[in-house]
């Protein structure tokens, strides 16, 4: 259960991008957040994933208020979230082969021994073949890289997935494949989803409930 209560957030003093917004994602629920570019929906998604500290407001994770953000957030809170960003190129370390890219969260949380097992489980789920796993980001297409980024988001088995324009750069078939992979994971684990995007048709088809940005402010 994720509750955002009267969140105000931004990047400059006295110029909040998000003003007094509240949003709830129930356990296992999928919520689509719909808004035009530049409206602040990505900032709200970053707040929801503990990646950006709001100026004011409360975020409750399973009823407990979150007090620390980013690297200061306690590990069990941080690892409750899996995040997929719009631009796979910008969110992937260009030096890491896809295997290491996917394994990074496991190593960072001291669970490096699970790497071979989890990679073997996840690669077919997101549709990556073994020859792709040894390549670095510049050797794969945008669609293939986003598949790896989704695997990285799933590797710690998060209770909540935040997908910020996950499919905006992708062709129709890859987009449908990634949405199907997210839904398979949710069906198997009961994880909740906050999907942020501007494509009304896609979010209505994907999510239990879509919320228009205008209705939040």
């Amino acid at each position, binding site marked *: 259960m994720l509750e955002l209560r009267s969140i105000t957030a931004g990047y400059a003093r006295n110029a909040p991008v998000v003003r007094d917004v509240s949003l709830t994602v129930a356990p296992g629920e999928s919520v689509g957040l719909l808004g*035009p*570019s*530049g409206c602040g929906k990505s900032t709200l998604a970053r707040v929801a994933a503990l990646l950006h500290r709001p100026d004011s407001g409360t975020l409750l994770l399973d009823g407990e208020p979150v007090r620390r953000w980013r690297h200061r957030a306690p590990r069990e809170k941080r690892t409750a979230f899996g995040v997929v960003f*719009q631009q796979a190129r910008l969110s992937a370390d260009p030096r890491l082969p896809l295997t290491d890219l996917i394994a990074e969260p496991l190593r960072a949380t001291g669970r490096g021994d699970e790497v071979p097992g989890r990679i073997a489980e996840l690669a077919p789920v997101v*549709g990556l*073949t073994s020859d792709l796993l040894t390549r670095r980001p510049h050797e794969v*297409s*945008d*669609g*293939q890289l986003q598949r790896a980024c989704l695997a990285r988001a799933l590797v710690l088995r998060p209770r909540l997935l935040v997908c910020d324009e996950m499919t*905006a*750069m*992708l*062709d*129709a*078939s*890859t*987009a*449908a*494949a990634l*949405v*199907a992979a997210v839904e398979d994971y949710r069906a198997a684990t009961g994880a909740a989803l906050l999907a942020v995007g*501007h*494509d*009304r*048709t*896609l979010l*209505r*088809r*994907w999510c239990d409930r879509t919320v228009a940005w205008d209705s939040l402010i």
Partner: protein
Amino acid sequence: MSAGLDVTPPVLSVRGLSVRFLMPGGRRVAAVTDARFDVAPGECLALIGESGCGKSVLASALLGLLPGNARTAGSALLGGLDLLTADERTLARTVRGRLIGLVPQSPAAHLTPVRTVRSQLEETVAALTATRGRAALRAAAEAAAERAAFPADHLDRHPHQLSGGLAQRAATALALVGDAPLLLADEPTTGLDRDLVDRTADELRRHVDEPGEGGRGRALLMITHDLAAAERIADRVAVMYAGRIVELADAAAFFGSPGPRHPYSRGLLQALPDRAFTPIPGMPPELGDLPDGCAFAARCDRATDACAAPPPPGTVACHHPHVPEDVRA
């Protein structure tokens, strides 16, 4: 627009265009194979396909912007000029900007960040046209901005002060300055939201319909993976898969009834969220390691033993294309 009745010669005529990249160790990557299409004046041809299928390589080949390890074959005639054999001097002085206007993929990266839109437009006008003199350049730049619906009060802004839609218009204004008969738009709508996609696409369409020099419309080759944008403005659609154009069809028939005939095109449309929303199983093959037969056979539910042989040439490169009777059944 049917090819048989069309008497005006095409603006761009591509025949047997192939691009191979020579890689270290003697490996060859077949990025584009035997592409064949025409674009007529006043027509928009949308080239669609998954990312990595060779669409952008084809665009680079037309502009002579391929890297040094690329080898091309075939011909791409623009007027009387073969773009594939033209030397760099010809390409730089007569083709880029003058015969082909490029609407780039990410306008924010295409514009110079340290100069205003006005200064970039004036420079382009001075380079591509005979306009001389400060006042004349200023007027011509303002006229160019107006043609692309770029607001005059934003001309003195730098690219980072523009929204995505306005940056797109600034880039389009630059592409239109040379009054080129062919516009080449490489993923012009990537990363824009739906309303902006519609507006950008409509503006491109307007430039196609607007008569250029000699009273004929411009030709537009739009390379995109955005099927909604293609449906909105294209007259004809070319579907590319693994470096080959596998289907060339009338846009109304392709997106409406009877629908696409190649199983790959059909799968691509069925992946849309307002249709079946089911992905095509598997992934596209490696361009460095293509099978001898149909490259789509491994992912195709209609594949048979016949698909081990190269597909027949024609408008649908498939051994078992959907025929209109299938659609009704």
